[in-house]
């Protein structure tokens, strides 16, 4: 059942790749959209089959593949991964819908989009460490090509930087996976079996640190973040949306699944360091965002900052904070994707993303009033205005982290205020004032440009008003993951906050 999400897009990519050149420009997008719709519908079916009351892996699939290598085709879904595959299904559909039919090299473009989707979903579903690594590497190639072929002026540099960073990330993760598989004596990469290891603390610390650096590059954690602004700035809008929306989540997902999941004892020791790194991420990302003039860079550095919240809550590792990480992942995925969509439309229409050049885009008739209004909602959500998803996510993160890391949490709260600073600055300079004469003849905005953003704004508001609709999927998994920490409290430096279950009455 889960494999459909992986193999159907690959079949779609193959069909598009085989299209005759004569019909490719017309049919590629349509076929990709059909497959994306299929993925989205099937994701809905999986959600319907998923039982939120079960904390563990569900809909498990297993197939022996390369047994001597310890590689099995094991797929499963739990409360940690199910919101992420849902978000992937939605965002893939939206990016394909918003892509131009006359995009250059359409067969390759749409094929890569579908391969990217398959890789990401595969990574979220893999229950074998080596299988996860394979999918983790698979998504690297299409994203590299999307940046390198359809990117901006410095695309070659950005794509290569992304490739190098992510390749190093992959090597470190692979090394850690091999380390635990070999040192634990399990002899294969089965996630469930590896959870039962009894490695000494020193070994756990080394392996966890390796994993932390590996996924830290992907998240990204400062100082491993420098690839991200370049990749975002040079990537086409659709790639930026997927990058911010789901690909960065591979890092946080991996950190929780394989860091906390496999090394809960070491996690508790490293947690204060993680919390400090979260503070650095939040403050560094926010302050650098304030200094930027490129809208995409502002959103990119905002992403760096907001990933810090996930890190903070993950470090706290309580049931509630782990719920916070998942909600923050979804929240950041939707909001940052929304902002990248909107920046993409602005860039497409005005030819610039420079806040020093843009002015008065909220002008009612010749500006981009709806896009501007959606942008205002998006930045409000990002700044944690109540009634929107950003508020709920950040509130849960702060509420759950404060008893564990009070100083770090307070410093991270400063990041929320800074988010308002750089985004209000962006809004004020770009959308208010008089539309300058050189911007008075902008082309019209089609519904194709508007609908993805409208859909995401609607979700941000709906989930902001009804956070339970997101939390319910991951509640039991969060409790189970939090209890991993409880198991180790006797040997821990820090006792995690015990939150009464259930999280939602």
């Amino acid at each position, binding site marked *: 059942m889960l494999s459909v999400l992986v193999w159907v897009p690959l079949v779609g990519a193959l069909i598009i790749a085989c299209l005759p050149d004569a019909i490719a420009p017309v049919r590629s997008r349509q076929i990709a959209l059909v497959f994306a719709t299929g993925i989205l519908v099937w994701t809905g079916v999986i959600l319907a089959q998923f039982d939120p009351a079960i904390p563990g892996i569900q809909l498990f699939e297993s197939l022996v593949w390369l047994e001597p290598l310890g590689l099995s085709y094991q797929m499963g879904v739990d409360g940690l991964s199910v919101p992420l595959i849902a978000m992937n299904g939605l965002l893939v559909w939206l990016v394909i819908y918003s892509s131009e039919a006359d995009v250059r090299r359409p067969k390759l473009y749409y094929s890569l989009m579908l391969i990217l989707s398959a890789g990401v979903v595969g990574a979220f579903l893999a229950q074998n460490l080596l299988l996860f690594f394979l999918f983790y590497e698979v998504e690297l190639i299409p994203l590299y090509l999307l940046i390198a072929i359809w990117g901006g002026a410095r695309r070659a540099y950005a794509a290569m930087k992304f490739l190098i960073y992510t390749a190093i990330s992959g090597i470190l993760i692979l090394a850690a996976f091999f380390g635990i598989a070999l040192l634990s004596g399990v002899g294969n990469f089965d996630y469930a079996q590896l959870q039962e290891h009894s490695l000494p603390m020193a070994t756990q610390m080394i392996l966890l640190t390796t994993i932390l650096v590996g996924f830290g590059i992907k998240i990204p954690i400062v100082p491993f973040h420098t690839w991200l602004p370049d990749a975002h700035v040079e990537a086409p809008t659709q790639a930026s949306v997927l990058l911010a929306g789901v690909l960065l989540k591979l890092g946080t997902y991996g950190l929780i699944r394989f860091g906390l999941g496999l090394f809960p004892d070491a996690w508790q020791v490293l947690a204060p360091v993680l919390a400090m790194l979260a503070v650095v991420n939040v403050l560094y990302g926010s302050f650098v965002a304030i200094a930027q003039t490129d809208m995409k860079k502002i959103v990119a550095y905002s992403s760096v900052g907001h990933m810090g919240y996930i890190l903070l809550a993950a470090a706290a590792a309580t049931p509630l904070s782990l719920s916070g990480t998942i909600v923050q992942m979804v929240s950041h995925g939707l909001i940052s994707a929304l902002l990248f969509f909107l920046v993409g439309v602005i860039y497409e229409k005005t030819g610039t993303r420079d806040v020093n050049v843009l002015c*008065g885009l909220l*002008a*009612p*008739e*010749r*500006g981009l009033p709806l896009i501007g209004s959606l942008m205002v909602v998006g930045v409000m959500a990002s700044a944690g205005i109540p009634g929107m998803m950003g508020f709920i996510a950040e509130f849960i993160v702060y509420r759950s982290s404060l008893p564990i890391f009070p100083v770090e949490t307070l410093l991270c709260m400063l990041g929320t205020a800074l988010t308002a600073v750089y985004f209000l600055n962006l809004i004020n300079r770009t959308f208010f004032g*008089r*539309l300058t*004469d050189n911007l*008075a*003849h*902008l*082309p*019209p905005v089609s519904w194709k440009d508007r609908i993805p953003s409208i859909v995401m704004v609607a979700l941000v508001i709906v989930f902001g008003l009804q956070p339970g609709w997101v939390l319910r999927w991951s509640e039991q998994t969060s409790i189970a993951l939090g209890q991993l920490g409880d198991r180790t409290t006797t040997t821990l430096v820090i006792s995690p906050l015990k939150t009464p279950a259930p999280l939602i009455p």
Partner: protein
Amino acid sequence: MVSLESKPASAAINPIILRIEQGGALLPDTPENVIEVVGILKSYGIVLDAYWRNLTYIANEQFLVLFPFFKYFNGEVNLDKLLKHWWHDRINYEFAEYCMKAMFWHGGGGLDAYLDTPEFEALAKSAIQAKVSGNLLMAPLNRLTPQFLVEQVRQLCYYSALGQFWDVMSDMFLVLSDRYDRGEITSIADVVTHVKNGLVAAAAKPITYHVNIDGKPYPILPESAGLTFLADTALPYVETVFLRSFPFFGTVSYNAQANQISPDQADFTYGALFADPLPIGGAGIPPTLLMQDLRHFIPDYLHQVYQGGIRGEDDLRVKLCISFQKSMFCVTSGAIFGLMPHPLDTTNPSEQAANRSHITDWVKRLEDSRLLQVQSS
């Protein structure tokens, strides 16, 4: 930052002065401008027709009605019209009132002077007395503040005067459109000549106003006051609505404490010719209301031109505002020609110099308006 410092005349206005001396207009003569100007004036003529009827209705039928809830209904109050009104499926009569109030505030011309005479006050009080006698609310009010209702009557005079002015202008613009349809108008000069001739023909038309109270007529502006169309309504209207208007509408913020607004109303430059189409309503009386009305009556040939633009229908009101300003530059050109001290084709050097001075004064006054922008757009 808005500055009040006057700037020296730029070389950019010299070609405009030269063009007017040669019989041209403030607006360049291009086929596109002719379509825009004639098309918008046709729509404007229809809208003005509705405006003047409502202004006249208010002046005549809503005389000293202190709570005129249904003043925009022209006496026809029913559920259908009420629902349309609330749904805003209607003419924005508020725009006409803004113009009236601007004229009332800025004054100028013989009407303004007459409204301060004892003769007017006596006529007004006579009508007021007839209106308030037996009225339990208004009679004590009139006794308590005897100048309040007189001031209301002054305002109603402007309702009536502007209604009479727009009655003439509405017909003039609709006839222009008919002549264009017959192929008689082919250039901007033709438009200006049509307007000038219309203004001159109506110049001496008397402006009068009387109300009927209980079946008895009460003169407010009698013919003996000598108020005429051109001097007492047309010129104050151009001065007020085209040039001065209000500084406090629209989206541009003015700070009077920072001397961004002149203490002298004569220096105001917030009129229709100065209004910024981007965003609409950037200065003076909000043109947005007028543009919303104009968009319902655009002739097909002009609609096609607008639809050919890059934003199609999306920025229709901006295009309407730009076209409207172009047309008002033509009307202003007609006024310049109508007030020319000597015939344009005079060979007398001193008369030529006087004409040039007259033209230069007008063009310099318009230098900071949208005049230079419409030269190229």
